[in-house]
């Protein structure tokens, strides 16, 4: 049976070079095929030529799978991507798919794409028409906010970034005041600046707000409010007082059980019918309240998970030191429980940010909504792809930044050793 000896340390001198050549050949074949549209092994019959890289690579990987070869890099390679036939197969498939998908993506995004010009007619290539994004960029960022007043949004966000930036460098004693300012004063200051109506600023109605700035405004307010409400609901659901417990359970289950789109629709269309005549609550505020309460219900369950994960001894130790309910929860229980559920909190908040496009049902248009509007413009028909790819990228950047921040926070707060 031993027609071919099993690859081992004895025959490494013959097998390793042959294996490496075969694997290289298989990658080269796919690469040349993908980038230059030329089939290296085209002389072979059709079916075999199609699978040839897979077969060559597979044999190559088999030959170099030498246990305890003594070559460090080879051992690492074998352990991680070539530990058995099945893994070798998966490795090959993954690499091939990656190589194969680069050229079309590159073509669409860059090589065949158009960047210059002012109208759809300037887009002559087969690739993406980034002119669309360029021309509409202002609208995607600010919605229908008047051009002359856009500096106000810029200023509001600039102030935010500067304050956050400074707060990273000040001492921890000053930091407390920065955070208090950011949480309790800045949001209202920023809204005042953007909505105007006082200090000689022109009033801009919220229906004109939109684009990415609206995404940020809604996300920021909803995050700011849903977090404390969620924590209270979580505590309420575990309260020993039946009234508080049942109210919390009812609230959570009601809001969790309804789709967000329904909640938004009701907040915008049905809610005003119940208000007495003459009272008016701005649509944006109603939507904000709806999103906040909706996400608070989710947040409550995430936090409750953390509360339940804490050993009973922590509660008893806190109480045995004479702490009352609030001191126990604020000083002992919540700091630990929240730290435990940072991944879950990040999850909920990411979902919140990505839920904001749903406000289109009430006629508010943030980034995705503005793109939806722009793509139906008669002069720019057929630009949906560019628009939504752009929206996807922007959302991904925001969400990835949040995710990284949550990971850092986890590391920073870890006191396990």
């Amino acid at each position, binding site marked *: 049976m031993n027609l071919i000896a099993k690859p081992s340390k004895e025959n490494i001198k013959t097998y390793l070079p042959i294996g490496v050549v075969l694997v290289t050949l298989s990658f080269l074949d796919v690469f040349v095929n993908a980038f230059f549209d030329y089939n290296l092994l085209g002389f072979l019959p059709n079916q075999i030529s199609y699978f040839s890289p897979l077969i060559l690579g597979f044999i190559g990987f088999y030959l170099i799978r030498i246990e305890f070869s003594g070559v460090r890099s080879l051992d690492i390679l074998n352990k991680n991507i070539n530990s058995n036939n099945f893994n070798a197969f998966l490795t090959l498939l993954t690499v091939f798919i990656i190589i194969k998908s680069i050229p079309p993506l590159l073509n669409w995004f860059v090589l065949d794409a158009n960047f210059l010009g002012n109208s759809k007619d300037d887009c002559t290539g087969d690739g993406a028409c980034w002119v669309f994004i360029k021309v509409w960029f202002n609208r995607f960022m600010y919605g229908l906010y008047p051009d002359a007043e856009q500096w106000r949004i810029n200023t509001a966000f600039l102030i935010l970034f500067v304050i956050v930036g400074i707060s990273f460098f000040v001492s921890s004693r000053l930091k407390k005041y920065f955070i208090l300012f950011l949480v309790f004063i800045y949001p209202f200051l920023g809204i005042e600046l953007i909505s105007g109506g006082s200090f000689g600023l022109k009033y801009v109605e919220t229906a004109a707000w939109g684009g990415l700035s609206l995404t940020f405004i809604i996300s920021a307010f909803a995050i700011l409010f849903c977090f404390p409400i969620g924590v209270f609901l979580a505590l309420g659901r575990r309260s020993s007082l039946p009234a508080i417990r049942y109210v919390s359970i009812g609230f959570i289950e009601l809001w969790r059980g309804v789709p967000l789109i329904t909640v938004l629709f009701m907040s915008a269309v049905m809610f005003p019918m119940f208000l007495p005549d003459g009272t008016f609550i701005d649509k944006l505020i109603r939507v904000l309240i709806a999103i906040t309460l909706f996400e608070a219900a989710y947040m409550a369950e995430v936090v409750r998970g953390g509360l339940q994960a804490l050993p009973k*001894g922590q509660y*008893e*130790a806190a109480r*045995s030191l*004479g*702490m009352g309910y609030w001191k126990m929860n604020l000083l002992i229980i919540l700091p630990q429980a929240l730290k435990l559920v940072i991944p879950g909190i990040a999850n909920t908040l990411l979902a919140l940010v990505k839920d904001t496009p749903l406000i289109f049902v009430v006629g508010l248009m943030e980034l995705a909504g503005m793109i939806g509007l722009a793509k139906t413009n008669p002069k720019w028909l057929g630009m949906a792809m560019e628009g939504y790819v752009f929206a996807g990228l922007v959302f991904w950047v925001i969400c990835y930044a949040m995710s990284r921040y949550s990971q850092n926070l986890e590391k920073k707060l870890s*006191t*396990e*050793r």
Partner: protein
Amino acid sequence: MGKIIELKKVNKWFDKFQVLKDIDLEVASQEKIVICGPSGSGKSTLIRCINRLEEHQEGNIIVDGTELAENTKNIEKIRAEVGMVFQQFNLFPHLSILDNCTLAPIWVKKLPKKEAEEVAMRNLTRVQIDDQALKFPGQLSGGQQQRAAIARALCMEPKIMLFDEPTSALDPEMIKEVLDVMVDLAKGGMTMIVVTHEMGFAKEVADYMIFMDEGKIVERAKTKEFFENPKSERTKLFLSQIL
């Protein structure tokens, strides 16, 4: 010496199961009492009733002149005066040892931070882990953690200390360092109620021994008499098994 703890006809049930049956107990100030007995005999429940981590359903518990009842403020006041040490240490893992010790004095007793830290360092020195003050509980050995937990309780300057099997979760070689701290505390005149199986410790410091079984106090006697001449058959059997 005046009575500092008084239990009168205390009864307690978990659902239908009666864990404490007609417990009568008086503890004078500065007395040291060791409670022993088989597991499930209600000894932990008894001392947890004294600072109301468990609620009793019948009878009266009077601690330092205050009756333990529904009134929350009373309970918090009692708890601040009664230190408790747990089998599982129950240090706060998110805080350093020093912060563990200063948290309650600052927030419950409203001590200024600096003063609280001085008190904490004094107590940490007393239990000989002042060099670990800035570490987190997870970085300490079991014995060190338990000593930190004792220091944390002492920082509230309690009149009474309750110990709920303080050495049961420790490796054998760490038991002694914790018992040494407790002996030192006993000699300093603290009122102590200790649930433990460490009979060597009991012989050394206890004024009275209490033997519990099936929710009842079976025997209460001076330490010497308890070990040399136990009256009840149940006590004799228990002692013959653990000594």
